């Protein structure tokens, strides 16, 4: 798992991951690249991450992927990410395409629902929590 201040260097990370697994005999490599869309007059999105819980979440996915003979990788931005640059890169490697296609879907969806990352719109330099696009994590409401 890799965290970076600001936008990701997508080409560099994609290429390094390709090289890291070049001799691993995986037949399928499916990255997912998330890029900031220009909408609602935002200049950027901005991200807070709680790394200890994110690392635990990611480690559980490493194990889950291993049990299917696959591997997962992930990179995410911290702080401001201007529109048309990338905040998120994840990937699945697998010997088989079906496993890879199913795993990238589950991995990305679970990431959206349960990775401890908070998103803010940046408008006129102000950072506004994207509450309407955010999802309560599993087990929310325990203390209410």
């Amino acid at each position, binding site marked *: 798992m890799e965290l970076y201040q600001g936008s990701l260097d997508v080409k560099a990370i994609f290429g390094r991951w390709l090289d890291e697994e070049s001799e691993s005999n995986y037949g399928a490599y499916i990255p997912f690249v*998330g890029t900031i869309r220009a909408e609602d007059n935002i200049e950027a999105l901005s*991200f*807070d*991450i*709680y790394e*200890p*819980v994110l690392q*635990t979440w990611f480690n559980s996915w490493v194990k889950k992927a291993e049990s299917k003979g696959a591997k997962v990788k992930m990179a*995410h931005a911290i702080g401001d990410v201007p529109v048309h640059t990338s*905040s*998120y890169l994840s990937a699945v490697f697998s010997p088989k395409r079906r496993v890879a296609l199913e795993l990238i879907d589950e991995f*990305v969806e679970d*990431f*959206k*629902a*349960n*990775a*401890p*990352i*908070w*998103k*803010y719109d940046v408008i006129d330099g102000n950072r506004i*929590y*994207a*509450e309407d*696009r*955010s*999802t*309560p*994590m*599993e*087990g*929310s*409401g*325990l*203390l*209410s």
Partner: protein
Amino acid sequence: MIKIEFLGPISVEPIEMEATSLQEVANRLQEIEAVSGWLDKCAVAVNDEMTNDLTKILKSGDRVSILPPVCGG
């Protein structure tokens, strides 16, 4: 002493309190105005491990994290 920390957009400073279970922490947080409105949509971690168990016993030095709705990617 238990430390309660509020993550992401909840702009509340960490709180220290005496408590022996998450239920006690819940009771106390429900009384704090800046916090109570968040609780129904927040998840909870104890010492960085997510938990669903309100009866969980806490010991001095434990750290409770309050995690509001997320949106990575």
